[in-house]
């Protein structure tokens, strides 16, 4: 709108208002956009991360207490079902973080913001770890309940493929030396992968039902007791806050590494070194 007003029949008053608007925006201390600059985001991430970490720790303690001492024993599975409080949040986070990664990739491609790519970078290892935890706890849970560590169930298989997608992203971004290309290539891969995730999920589901009637199904669980559900949600939030905290800390390191040629990073490193010396 403003672009149209400019020049054509802009009265002095209008032009002045327009100019004031621009200047106000440049000065604006409250605009969130300024945090797209790594230099601005670095201290913000440093301030936010401890809060998220503390919330994660608090929720984990609460969640684990509920999981081990309050939640009732499952009628069918006994005590072993309690692994669900780690397993399900891990699986959720692994899928969600891949989508967040792709989201930052799209933002980076569209707006050309370096920080978006750095966020995608920072999220990838955490997502891969959640994916691994989900697979591992799933195997440990499967052994006593199904009698086997692994079945080619649709959910397990698509989780495994998600793990491969994470590994592909990590391998690609680390193999390319030029950071600009690594950022964008990784983002492109994450976007292509995120389009494929639902396709993979449904094709695997169909493949599985074609081969054999699912002998074991994860969905047979009867309606959960409320306390179990609440505990799981608390653990999910703990996983969420942990991921945010770790991603923020990691993105700080990435910012320092990428921006090491700038004055403010040199000053920051001096400050850190001075603090370490005490």
């Amino acid at each position, binding site marked *: 709108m403003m672009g149209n007003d400019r020049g054509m029949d802009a009265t002095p008053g209008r032009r002045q208002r327009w100019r004031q608007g621009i200047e106000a925006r440049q000065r604006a201390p409250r605009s969130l956009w300024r945090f797209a600059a790594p230099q601005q985001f670095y201290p913000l991430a440093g301030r936010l991360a401890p809060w998220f970490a503390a919330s994660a720790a608090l929720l984990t303690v609460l969640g684990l207490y509920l999981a081990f001492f309050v939640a009732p024993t499952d009628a069918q599975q006994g005590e072993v079902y309690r692994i669900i409080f780690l397993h399900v949040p891990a699986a959720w986070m692994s899928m969600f973080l891949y989508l967040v990664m792709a989201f930052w990739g799209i933002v980076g491609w569209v707006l050309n913001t370096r920080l978006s790519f750095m966020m995608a970078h920072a999220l990838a290892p955490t997502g891969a770890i959640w994916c691994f935890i989900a697979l591992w706890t799933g195997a440990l849970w499967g052994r006593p309940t199904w009698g086997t560590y692994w079945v080619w169930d649709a959910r397990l298989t698509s989780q495994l493929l998600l793990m*491969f997608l994470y590994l*592909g992203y990590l391998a690609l971004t680390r193999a390319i030396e030029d950071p600009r290309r690594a950022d964008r290539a990784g983002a492109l891969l994450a976007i292509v992968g995120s*389009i494929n995730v639902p396709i993979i999920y449904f094709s*695997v589901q169909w493949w599985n039902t074609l081969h054999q009637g699912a002998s074991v199904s994860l969905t047979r669980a009867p309606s959960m007791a409320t306390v179990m559900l609440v505990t799981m949600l608390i653990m999910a939030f703990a996983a969420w806050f942990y991921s945010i905290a770790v991603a923020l800390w990691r993105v700080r390191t990435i910012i320092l590494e990428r921006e090491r040629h700038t004055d403010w990073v040199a000053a920051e490193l001096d400050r850190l070194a001075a603090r370490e010396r005490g």
Partner: protein
Amino acid sequence: MGAVFAAMMRREMALAWRGRTDVLLALSFFVVVVCLFPFGIGPEANQLRAIAPGVVWVTALLASLLALPRLFEHDLRDGTLEQLLLSPEPAVVWVLAKVTVHWLVTGVPVALFAPLLAGLYDLQPEVLPLLAGTLLLGTPTLTLVGAIGAALTLGVRSGAVLLALLVLPLAVPVLIFGAGAVEAALGGVSYTAHLALLGAGGLAAVALAPWACVAALRLAVS
């Protein structure tokens, strides 16, 4: 646009013809690997018949992967790629032409040879045309998705291994529906849904993959 497509097709065909050993290598790889499975599994005919569609499909996937690094490598090394990207013609057009020729010289021979090899596995003759058909329908998608991977890993150290890691998980749906169609036919079930899904995947790949491929190529030469 049509002229660019045709010119690129002619060029790529000429190059493929002059480097025809490369094409034969991918095909021989396919033949040798398919023949390798009975040695590992045993010559029991029933078992071989059961795994035949899967073996042929997985091997076709690997053969297509083997040829992929060559897709853009030569053009990158002699500077052609940079010139092509600088040209005012839409890059998607010539990328699509390159991928088409790549599929013609790698995917089509594999699809045509597949029924012969499936004969070694004692697969019922009625499903052999279907096997070739699913390969003809599915390999374009593999080539298109693989082209994105080839562009992403272009000029990257140990790019070929990386390419496998990137492309293979994305190829799983094609594998499922391709081999699934043959198995459905063997089981006496309708397989048209599989073919429809393979075709749909191929159309989606034709529409979307060249754009991603061009974006990745621009990164590779920048």
